[in-house]
């Protein structure tokens, strides 16, 4: 962290589809860097002092909730935990995350996409008896390692970085995307979910599913939570190929 003040140049994509006649454009803002400044701090500063109409989404500002993914100098990432000091020349270009409906400027509707994804992979425990569990009794036991492995996949924060980095998704709008594969793998691993491989095949056994994936692994490269995309996608493909 250097103590030298420098002026940062932010080039930001601006477009408000709600506003009649508005056109997409890039606008440049200059602000003085502060020590420990993140893109979250910088954008709020710009909004408060230069342009109150600037739209972006932050919730936790701690890299936990997945709200703030955007393209920073060409790479999808969580803006809240990106320090401006990472960019040596002080030039920072921000674009909204592609692959999602644009709300305005840097704000995109990942929520809608993720709910649809959850519905599509039926992102819940399938067990006819789950609602009849007698919760006065000891819970069903689980192997501690299995619990840990499930958590590894459940760390996904639905930020959408993997979706935006995926070439297949660009060509196939209905492609489930890595986030969906990770979710499905999470339930496939969970002994509490009673779905069979055939049932999972119904969901991902086609070209909009795991067979459309070209395993170029943009997803794994950009996942801010380091989910094991490569291993899991390979695993799902093997499992599904076996059924096909």
């Amino acid at each position, binding site marked *: 962290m250097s103590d030298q003040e420098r002026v940062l140049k932010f080039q930001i994509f601006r477009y408000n589809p709600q506003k009649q006649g508005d056109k997409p454009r890039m606008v440049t803002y200059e602000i003085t860097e502060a020590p420990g400044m993140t893109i979250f701090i910088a954008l709020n500063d710009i909004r408060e002092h230069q342009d*109150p109409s600037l*739209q972006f989404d932050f919730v936790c500002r701690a890299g936990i909730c997945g709200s703030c993914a955007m393209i920073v100098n060409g790479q999808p990432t969580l803006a809240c935990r990106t320090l401006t000091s990472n960019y040596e020349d002080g030039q920072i270009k921000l674009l909204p995350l592609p692959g999602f409906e644009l709300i305005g400027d840097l704000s995109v509707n990942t929520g809608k996409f993720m709910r649809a994804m*959850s519905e599509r992979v039926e992102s819940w425990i399938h067990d006819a008896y789950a609602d009849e569990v007698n919760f*006065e009794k000891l*819970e069903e036991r689980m192997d501690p390692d299995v619990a840990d492995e499930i958590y590894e996949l459940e760390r996904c924060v639905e930020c959408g970085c993997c979706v935006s980095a995926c070439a297949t998704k660009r060509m196939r709008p209905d492609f489930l995307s890595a986030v969906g594969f990770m979710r499905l793998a999470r339930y496939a691993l969970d002994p509490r979910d009673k779905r069979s491989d055939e049932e999972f095949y119904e969901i991902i056994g086609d070209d909009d599913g795991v067979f459309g994936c070209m395993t170029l692994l943009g997803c794994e490269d950009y996942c801010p939570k380091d989910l094991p995309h490569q291993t899991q996608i390979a695993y799902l493909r093997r499992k599904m190929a076996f059924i096909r």
Partner: protein
Amino acid sequence: MKVIYTDSLVIGGGLAGLRVAIASMQRGFDTIVLSLVPAKRSHSAAAQGGMQASLGACIKGDGDDEEIHFADTVKGSDWGCDQDVARMFVNTSPKAIRQLSAWGVPWSRVRRGDHEVVINGKKVTITEKDEAHGLITARDFGGTKKWRTCYTSDGAGHTMLYAMDNKAIQMGIPVHERKEAIALIHEDGVCYGAIVRDLITGKLIAYVAKATTIATGGYGRLYAISTNAVISEGIGNAIALETGIATLGNMEAVQFHPTAIVPVGILTTEGCRGDGGLLLDKDGYRFMPDYEPDKKELASRDVVSRRMTEHMRKGKGIPSRYGDHLWLDITLLGRKHIEKNLREVKEICEYFLGIDPVEEYIPVRPTQHYSMGGIRTKPTGESPTLKGLFSAGEAACWDMHGFNRLGGNSVAETVVAGMIVGEYVADYCSENSLNVSTSTIQHFMKREEKKITDLLVRDFGENPFKLKAQMQKIMMDKVGIFRNGEDLEQAVEELKVLNQRAKRIALRNRISSSNPELVEAIRVPKMIKLAQCVAYGAMLRTESRGAHAREDYLERNDRDWLKRTLTTWKDDSADLPQVTYEDLDVMKMEMPPGSRGYGVDNTVHHPDTPKREQEIEDIKKANPGADRFELQELLNPIPIPEKFKGKNERIGRGFK
């Protein structure tokens, strides 16, 4: 006018809101959830540490049960809580966690055999029992007698919220995202839903419902530096206050967490200390044992925060350009443990501080963290004054936390309150019909429309961002960890001025659709009112209790202050809220006020305390054969929905 009708309207898609929605849907009522953000991004996701439930499966939790959890919770609250509610809570929490387990939370599990752990700065070996293998495990947290905080590595809140939202999706519960409730609709003392602004189109919609539940989380962002999400601005509380009918309880009860990183205020979980981390000063000296020889770093949160502040005031802090701080040392836990059980902490240190906590100390300082105050409710979750309005979670003053909540008791509260209040919401839906007049709906709609139009046409006026920053600074400087009469009086006066100024906000960006400046302009006057409730309540309360610490009134004064603060705002043009009090009845307490066991006990006792103690002794003597359940029934008979009445099983102990 766009109107959407439903039975159960739930404002808030965090853990509490979703659980209430699930309960009313399960009982067959049409349910809609509103949220500022996608539900899974609610602030509940940020809870890292875990959830308290007395399962007693791990060896260090052996012997735990509802009684011990109850005692810890009441003590933690500094006897400010509602003991009926604390009772309902501790009895239901084990059920809540087991239900969540069935719904998919991958709780960390007990692993049989020897484990090396760090306790009191030393490595020790503990041995987990064979028969406990695979059950839900727990970690140590501040202010608890047993290891009771169940966790998923350090993503407890995240996994709980994901399981809860997934359950809601499974049940087809609609979550209307990017919607903000800005006013409640009410008529003749009954609430009928809310006026809601679509944050994308800017359109106002009336959501009309039989029962309305506010589960909008805390109001941490009244402070400039807070561990809370940027959306934790208390708007749900404010719209209840603005009815002039609903009351807010104990708004001055604000908790500061010992270990948020400096300067940004992001939290490092209490799990750091629970797992063995230490607090060190500028000399690398472990100072907590000097202040609290018994619980040390794991004293209750309010206590640790105050001790840290005292120590820094003695010049023992590490100076930095952002003021003094102390060190949190987790290096002694080792890489393996940190990378598995404290991984989010590690990520936060790497990204925001550029350090590796496996090798370096973390700069920390007490920071605003939790709002014990909120919408006052009965044990059913309903407002005692505005019928049909319910509240649950951090937004509510259901009041199991009193003046200080224990770590791990909050996410537990959200789910347990969601279950219990959810049943009462469903009861209410089945017992009441919707008979609100269209003119009432129109009245509220027009009123809110006019406020927005006024904002959009005003040419000159105040800047909402600046007003907010000024309010946050007042709260930081004058309504913080240690409080005194002089500062508080100034805060109250200065906030009055801001309140007036907030009536003349003008915008630079004058469009009605998605517009962050307009959002701010709608929220800031509401936030200032809440800040006034906090500051004024703090000024009036001339004692120290839990997180409310007065330098000019050091003692806890049960004689004069064993009561809950109730705040209303009847006249919108007034520049201060009205404050009244509700007594806590010692003669009904299962656990009469005593000492928390920190520092010197200088409590001014309530005259009823010895009476009640004697009465309890007599009841115990008269019923020598009574087991703990029968005794509780005699001392504190509580209402609890039928579904949740059963006893909880524990390993090696059955249902005893």
